[in-house]
């Protein structure tokens, strides 16, 4: 049984925790808390020793400090005196609430009262607990250093001799990780029942596999997929990694209720939905209440539609130094990581802000000395103010570029993977608000002054848009107006765009080709660019996958000779009920899959090459998820990569040889196997026949005991000859002519 959250009882869960860290002291802390209810008390040490008459003065002085945190009064401060009538240098203070007391401990501890005296603030409970006799040993014992234990290499899969890729497969109750073996059956690494409760997710560089349980998230890694980390967020539903795998955001629709005995969550997390975790330490950095997105306006007399969850709630900058989230219509809050303080102590007020996106990479902009992170956001039209798209530089919070737009119904922001362009897809309505059209406003981020290029040759609305990874081409899908009540989804058109060839920099974006009368709705670029799969997914009636090559090495269309693209459809395949399409991280394979989460017909996954040759079909009952394990970026320098590309032919010879050898071996194995099976079968048959003959003799039956009795006699009655000739007359009209006489 897999060591997973759900197979463990609540108790097991804690036991396991205890093996790693001894929480008994913390447990005690929580046990005592409710019993005594002295949470509002703090003890202040380090006060000056004063005689009785100046005690009052000291208390008043002290109160000024104390009241900066919470509410307390003179009566609530108790400063005992000793026999000599002098104060002892400490005082007991009662706050109104435990939270205030907690805050006082956090913020006043170590704060200087004057030049000589520094406050030492502790909870009364802590004094009780740790200060009681016997609790602390008199002699110092050096803590035992645990012997070093070799940990599993978290990137061991990268060392595969054949550079194969791994994938996670979630079907029925089982999650397995497999090696991809091309057309041969995949090789299993691990396969565990009930490994996850909701879904699995790889971290962006493939180091961890996250499993999601009602008790929280677990991360698995290393060659044997051992447990690496646990993040106990009760009833967690969504998980998001930061781009460099440093942090993890978890969300649950249920506000957290911190209960006693919870070793990691503290009262800080109570009532929150979102926790940002530090993966390395396994501790929460900060927790938040989620801001839901406003739903569309409710029709009259109807119940207000449900609010949408904003996810990812927190968006990370490419360098993982900042994380931001939006309060829709009001502001963007940018936090510095890891201290999670607001950048510049305030949120960026942006009236009406609707969406924002970080640049996925740090952009080297022309004419800028310090390359900063870029963030793009947009606001709709408010009153007479136009809609606006703006680009902000962080941390300077300087607005780099803005652009005003009119008649806007919706805007989507699409960054190119290197941050070189951001395409603003603007859905516009006509003045009468009856027809819709889409404009593309492409910001050329790298160029000086960030010029904007407008592509407005599109008649219809764009339903999907996708940049070529690390490239400057894009594919979009448009659709016409849907007649209301139409049963058939409208036809779509797929358009390919490429820049004009113009020296080193990319020229203007031009349409390469439009393919009309499609049903496609999904665009899936190879992670290495050049190849793109355009497919119809989640459809009842169409399930085609078109494999396109943008740099076809063949004859080029004369009309497209100025464009940096040579478009060619390589192959079209069908996969019934396809719901998801995923490229492997190297861009060699594509997997199309039909998940039971969407429908229950013919679930399973098919493996294709980048050019659309189907290598294997794997119908799988209750298939849920197929996920390629991502790879970290290459460690080779640009020069080294170039070298590899140059010598590719040499290398591929070697690999081809290996492939042939592998095929030979496999074929021989199959033939051998078949030979064996066949000879076994024939032997069995012979033996069986012998037994039958023996038995027949033993029973004294004749050779034809199994043949029909009285057959000869009976036959005569039915048929005269042994064979029947069935005559069939077939009439065929060869020609028909009509003649009118007279």
């Amino acid at each position, binding site marked *: 049984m897999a060591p997973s959250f759900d197979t463990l009882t609540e108790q097991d869960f804690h036991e396991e925790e205890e093996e790693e860290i001894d929480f008994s002291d913390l447990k005690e802390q929580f046990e005592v808390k409710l019993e005594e209810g002295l949470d509002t008390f703090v003890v202040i040490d380090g006060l000056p020793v004063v005689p009785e008459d100046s005690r009052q003065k000291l208390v008043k002085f002290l109160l000024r400090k104390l009241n900066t945190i919470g509410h307390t009064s003179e009566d609530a401060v108790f400063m005992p005196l000793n026999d000599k009538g002098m104060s002892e240098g400490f005082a007991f203070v009662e706050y109104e609430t435990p939270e205030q007391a907690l805050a006082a401990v956090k913020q006043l501890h170590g704060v200087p009262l004057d030049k000589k005296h520094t406050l030492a603030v502790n909870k009364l409970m802590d004094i009780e607990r740790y200060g009681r006799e016997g609790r602390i040993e008199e002699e110092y014992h050096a803590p035992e250093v645990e012997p070093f234990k070799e940990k599993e290499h978290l990137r061991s899969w990268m060392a595969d001799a054949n550079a194969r890729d791994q994938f996670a497969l979630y079907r029925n109750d089982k999650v397995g990780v497999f090696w991809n073996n091309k057309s041969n059956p995949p090789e299993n690494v691990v396969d565990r029942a009930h490994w996850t409760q909701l879904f699995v997710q790889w971290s962006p560089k493939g180091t961890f596999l996250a499993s999601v349980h009602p008790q929280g998230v677990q991360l698995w890694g290393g060659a044997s997929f051992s447990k690496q980390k646990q993040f106990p967020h009760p009833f967690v539903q969504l998980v998001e990694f930061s781009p460099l795998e440093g942090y993890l955001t978890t969300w649950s629709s249920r506000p957290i209720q911190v209960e006693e005995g919870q070793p990691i969550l503290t009262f800080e997390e109570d009532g929150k939905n979102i926790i940002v975790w530090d993966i390395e330490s396994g501790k929460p950095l900060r927790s938040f209440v989620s801001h839901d997105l406003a739903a569309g306006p409710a029709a009259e007399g109807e119940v207000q539609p449900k609010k949408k969850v904003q996810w990812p709630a927190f968006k990370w900058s490419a360098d993982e130094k900042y994380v931001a989230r939006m309060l829709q219509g009001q502001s963007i809050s940018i936090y510095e990581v890891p201290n999670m303080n607001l950048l510049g102590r305030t949120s960026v007020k942006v009236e009406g802000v609707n969406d924002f996106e970080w640049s996925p990479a740090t952009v080297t902009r022309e004419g800028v000395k310090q390359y900063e992170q870029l963030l793009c956001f947009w606001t709709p039209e408010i009153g007479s103010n136009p809609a606006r798209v703006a680009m902000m530089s962080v941390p300077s919070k300087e607005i780099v570029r803005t652009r005003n737009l009119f008649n806007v119904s919706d805007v989507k922001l699409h960054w190119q993977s290197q941050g070189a362009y951001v395409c603003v897809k603007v859905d516009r309505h006509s003045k009468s608000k009856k027809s819709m059209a889409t404009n593309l406003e492409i910001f050329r981020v790298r160029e000086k002054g960030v010029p904007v290029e407008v592509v407005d040759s599109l008649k219809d609305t764009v339903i999907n848009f996708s940049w070529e990874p690390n490239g400057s081409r894009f594919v979009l899908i448009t659709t016409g107006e849907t007649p209301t009540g139409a049963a058939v989804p409208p036809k779509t058109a797929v358009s390919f765009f490429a820049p004009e060839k113009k020296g080193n920099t990319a020229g203007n974006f031009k349409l390469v080709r439009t393919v009309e009368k499609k049903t496609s709705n999904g665009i899936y670029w190879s992670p290495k660019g050049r190849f793109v799969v355009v497919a119809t997914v989640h459809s009842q009636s169409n399930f085609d996958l078109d494999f396109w090559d943008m740099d076809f090495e063949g004859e080029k269309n004369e009309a497209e000779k100025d464009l940096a693209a040579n478009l060619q459809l390589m192959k079209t395949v069908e996969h019934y009920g396809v719901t998801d399409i995923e490229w492997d991280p190297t861009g060699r394979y594509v997997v199309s899959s039909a998940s039971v989460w969407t429908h229950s*017909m013919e679930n399973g996954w098919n493996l294709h090459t980048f050019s659309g040759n189907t290598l294997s079909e794997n119908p799988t009952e209750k298939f849920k998820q197929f996920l390629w394990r991502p790879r970290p970026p290459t460690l080779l320098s640009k020069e080294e990569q170039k070298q590899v590309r140059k010598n590719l032919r040499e290398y591929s010879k070697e690999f081809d040889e290996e492939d042939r050898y592998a095929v030979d071996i496999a074929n021989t194995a199959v033939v051998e196997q*078949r030979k064996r099976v*066949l000879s076994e079968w024939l032997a069995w048959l012979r033996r*069986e026949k012998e037994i039958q003959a023996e038995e*027949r003799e033993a029973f004294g039956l004749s050779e034809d*005991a199994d043949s029909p*009795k*009285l057959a000869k006699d009976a036959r005569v009655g039915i048929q005269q000859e042994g064979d029947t000739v*069935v005559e069939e007359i077939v009439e065929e009209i060869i020609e028909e002519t009509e003649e009118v006489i007279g």
Partner: protein
Amino acid sequence: MRPILLSGHERSLTQIKFNTDGDLLFSTSKDKVVCAWWSANGERLGTYSGHQGAVWTVDVSPNTVLLATGSADNTVRLWNIKTGECVKTWDFPTAVKRVAFSPDGSKLLAVTEKRMGFLGTIAVFDIAYGDGELNNLNVQADEPSLRITCNESKATVAGWSYLGKYIIAGHEDGSVSQYDPKTGDQLENVQAHEFDHQINDLQFSPDRTYFITASKDKSAKLMAASNLAILKTYKDYVILGGGQAAMDVTTTSARQGKFEARFYHKVFEDEIGRVRGHFGPLNTIDVHPAGTAYASGGEDGYVRIHHFDKPYFDFMYEVEREQLRK
């Protein structure tokens, strides 16, 4: 391989059967009618009417003289194939789900349903063939010569092994058992298929030393008649005896052609081909005794006869070819 479509039934097919020569094909259906067809061209020879309920099963005597049918009207009827008259009727307390002649035609078994307090049974009758001139066919025993009661799980299908030595029965719980047809003792019981996945069909090889079962667990198994050892397993075998449950039918019916007959290599367990065409689940199939054709009967009320083409006969694994050359 253009099929011949036989549309003589108004309701779903329950069983089809070639005679020993393969020139005739008999089909039964829920519409109470039994039909006889010429297998070569699909022409209807005639019908046998008289049953009052859905006809579940049919078998032809090895000499093509008598036809036995079992029905939901709780009877087994014996017909004169040539004349179409009913020569004998046996009454049972419950419906009859399967009839089968012994290899020499001297015995007939009938599997009865478990219902209304009656346990499922397998009844065996001695069959007489009159004077050899097709006269006096109605002289038959009134009582079964043997009655096997299935105490545990009811039998759904049954048949005779070589020499009539064993009666092999498939059960509702997915097990297969072996009975002695002389004493009625159960000799062997094997849980061949997944538990509680009913066995829908059971057919013997020509020499009756092994047989194949089809079950609701979507697999078919080849088993030895002598000791019930499982020899081969064929996965996803959805066709034999309508392995697909009615519940799934609605979800897959959106796609025509999902209902298909699949061909497997008997020895290597590989799938070698599929034939589509029915627009309902396939309930029953039978193969021509000479192996030149096969017929399938579907929930859609049609029987399709497929005569194999040359490539089918030419198809051979390299290993087999080698074997043949030796």
